[in-house]
């Protein structure tokens, strides 16, 4: 009989697959359930996607199995380790333009495998069929898979962060029906303390709402969580779970893998394999800081984030990523050279000036002549025309009310360069030149009065002779033997 492709189901024999796991066989391998459950990313709905090589549509990632069988039977294309691909749909979308019937040989590895007759395990003699394997042997593919993995892991961690901090979680307890509100951690704590249902530490869990829904389903069907046996009613079920200590999740039940963050950690590995990993020595030789078994190095440089704070322009709505860029923008767009305008002002005066400008701009008033305008654009036009992009009169802005930030979380204030980075030793760094302050008088030359004042406050005899250079040196050198009195003690004395 002529072997025709349509009548026989062509399957590669066991020798052909490079890895022991088979993509198309199902029930035997318990990795597939892992695949199905973990194949969630951004919780997007399954979407219709075109096949790689033809125009047939499949709903991915829901119908991933049908898709894979189709690929195998129609195109002899096998995708290796589909459970390692975090975002299957994007993966297919990525490869579709790059793969065509023409360049299959270049992109995929080609395997030859004997052909099996449909329904039997006999190999048809002499028949060899070409199969194409799309796998991470190709560095491009490997990098792609890694990036999907990384993205998914970060998404999971974000979700976990939300669940950790969200205090609006309300749910009735599964057992005692009391209404619990607060964080998910308190709910899980209650389940653990009051009813001894151990689901794991809240920090390890993600998608807690769904997990509890699942548990609830089990309980409603009178099915035991651990052994999955059915019982006649609730009380019998609870007795069974109590006696057999089944009030916890069966570690072998892969349905629950998706709720534990550790399963998303390494590509294609579940928690058992992660636990079995041996901590080998790190490659690359010497690392900064010492590495103990779990890598508890105090390396603070890992945590990088793109932008911490955007800086809004003083006069318009433009947002800049960095303070220097904002300064440039001010100079170019508004002809306001911040550094030259500010010049010799000290830190507090700069702060007051910035807050004053923000206040005026918000009220659509000119910063120099105090003329009011209808909107921001008019104001800018006026300031350009009358050349009012300069330092206003001191008594306009040098007021105490402008110590307080006009704008909430003002990025501009956070990088007002002090100019004197190492000035911690100079006298007037202790406080600003505000006339209100007591210590103003205590600056060099006036310390005597201050010391006497302090002495009166502390109401104890003061042996320390007053301010001479020699004494300041002495106090420096004897500093180590002086004992510093702490805040509370000082408060109590006063």
């Amino acid at each position, binding site marked *: 009989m002529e072997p025709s492709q349509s009548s026989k189901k062509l399957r590669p024999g066991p020798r052909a697959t490079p890895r022991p796991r088979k993509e198309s066989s199902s029930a035997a391998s318990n990795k597939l359930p892992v695949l199905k459950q973990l194949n969630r990313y951004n919780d997007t709905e399954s979407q219709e996607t075109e096949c790689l090589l033809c125009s047939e549509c499949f709903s991915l990632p829901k119908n991933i199995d049908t898709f894979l069988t189709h690929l195998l039977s129609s195109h002899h294309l096998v995708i290796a380790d589909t459970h390692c691909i975090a975002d299957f749909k994007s993966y297919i979308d990525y490869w579709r333009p790059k793969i065509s019937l023409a360049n299959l040989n270049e992109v995929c590895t080609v395997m030859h495998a004997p052909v099996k007759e449909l329904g039997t395990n006999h190999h048809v003699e002499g028949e060899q069929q070409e199969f194409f394997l799309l796998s991470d042997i190709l560095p491009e593919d490997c990098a792609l898979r890694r990036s999907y993995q990384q993205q998914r892991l970060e998404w999971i961690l974000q979700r976990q962060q939300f669940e950790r901090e969200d205090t609006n979680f309300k749910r009735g307890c599964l057992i005692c029906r009391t209404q619990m509100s607060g964080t998910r951690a308190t709910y899980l704590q209650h389940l653990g303390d009051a009813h001894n249902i151990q689901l794991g*530490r809240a920090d390890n869990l993600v998608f807690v709402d769904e997990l509890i829904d699942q548990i609830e389903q089990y309980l409603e069907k009178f099915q035991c969580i651990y052994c999955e046996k059915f019982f006649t009613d609730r009380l019998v079920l609870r007795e069974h779970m109590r006696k057999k200590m089944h009030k916890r999740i069966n*570690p072998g039940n892969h349905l629950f893998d998706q709720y534990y963050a550790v399963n998303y950690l390494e590509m294609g590995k579940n928690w058992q394999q*992660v636990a079995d990993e041996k901590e080998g020595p790190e490659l690359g030789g010497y690392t900064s800081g010492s590495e103990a078994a779990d890598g*508890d190095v105090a390396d603070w440089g890992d945590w990088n984030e793109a932008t911490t*704070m955007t800086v809004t322009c003083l006069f318009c709505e433009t947002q800049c990523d960095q303070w220097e860029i904002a300064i440039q923008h001010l100079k170019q767009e508004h002809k306001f050279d911040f550094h030259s305008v500010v010049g010799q002002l000290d830190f507090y005066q700069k702060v007051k000036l910035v807050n004053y400008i923000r206040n005026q701009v918000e009220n659509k008033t000119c910063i120099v002549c105090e003329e009011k305008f209808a909107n921001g654009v008019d104001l800018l036009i006026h300031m350009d025309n009358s050349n009012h992009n300069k330092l206003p009169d001191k008594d306009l802005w040098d007021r105490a009310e402008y110590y307080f930030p006009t704008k909430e979380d003002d990025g501009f204030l956070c990088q007002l360069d002090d100019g004197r980075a190492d000035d911690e030793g100079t006298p007037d760094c202790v406080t600003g030149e505000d006339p209100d302050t007591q210590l103003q008088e205590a600056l060099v030359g006036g310390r005597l009065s201050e010391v006497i004042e302090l002495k009166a406050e502390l109401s104890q005899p003061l042996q320390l002779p007053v301010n001479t250079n020699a004494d300041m040196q002495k106090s420096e050198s*004897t500093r180590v033997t002086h004992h510093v009195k702490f805040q509370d003690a000082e408060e109590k004395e006063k």
Partner: protein
Amino acid sequence: MADAAPAARGGFRGGFGSRGGDRGRGGPRGRGRGRGRGRGKEAEKEWVPVTKLGRLVRDGKIRTLEEIYLFSLPIKESEIIDFFMGVTLKDEVLKIMPVQKQTRAGQRTRFKAFVAIGDSNGHIGLGVKCSKEVATAIRGAIILAKLSVVPVRRGYWGNKIGKPHTVPCKVTGKCGSVQVRLIPAPRGTGIVGAPVPKKLLQMAGIEDCYTSARGSTGTLGNFAKATYAAIAKTYAYLTPDLWKEMPLTKAPYAQYAEFLSKNHRPVTQRPDA
């Protein structure tokens, strides 16, 4: 006979108490290992101090944490901090992130936890820990944060009325390429700064402060550490009101030397928590 059988059964299982203990030991290790076997009981585990300082604290010879800071004694047991400040300390997870390291067997990904701890009234600590599971990393980071708790000195900006509310003087902290400067602010200003130092300053109990940051503030780890260093410096700076000479007192080790020699048996190696 009828009594013997149930008794035997009870003996077999060890009765309620030890069954609770069995469960407590957590027989077959289930999901989420380290899930606090017998969770409620864990909190009451006896603390057996292994350091001299721990022994003194446990036996009430040292009354406040400040006495330890006075002599700059290194704190190696987090239970000491718990003893003085257990309830008031609040921890906050700043970030959990995956980190990878290259080993012979390939790349290893782990979770790294950044945790800040503080009581919003004069103490702050920061900790980092890496681990396979999120909960383990967080727990380890909290312990390290507790060990790094430092006192925070607060002062006044102008008039000395009410409670201290801002940093006593301009202080700078540096970590990596990030330099953070804390500047005193008048009462009511609030904390002017990026989210990370803002959180830390709030946890330290500083109500008003200007911040000025330089360097690559995108490395939030270094940013946090630099802020912590700046806050710690508030007690390192000698201001005029501290010039008064105080009488020297004996260090706790010297003062209680006899007590220690009688009651403390030094342990050579401590199993890591």
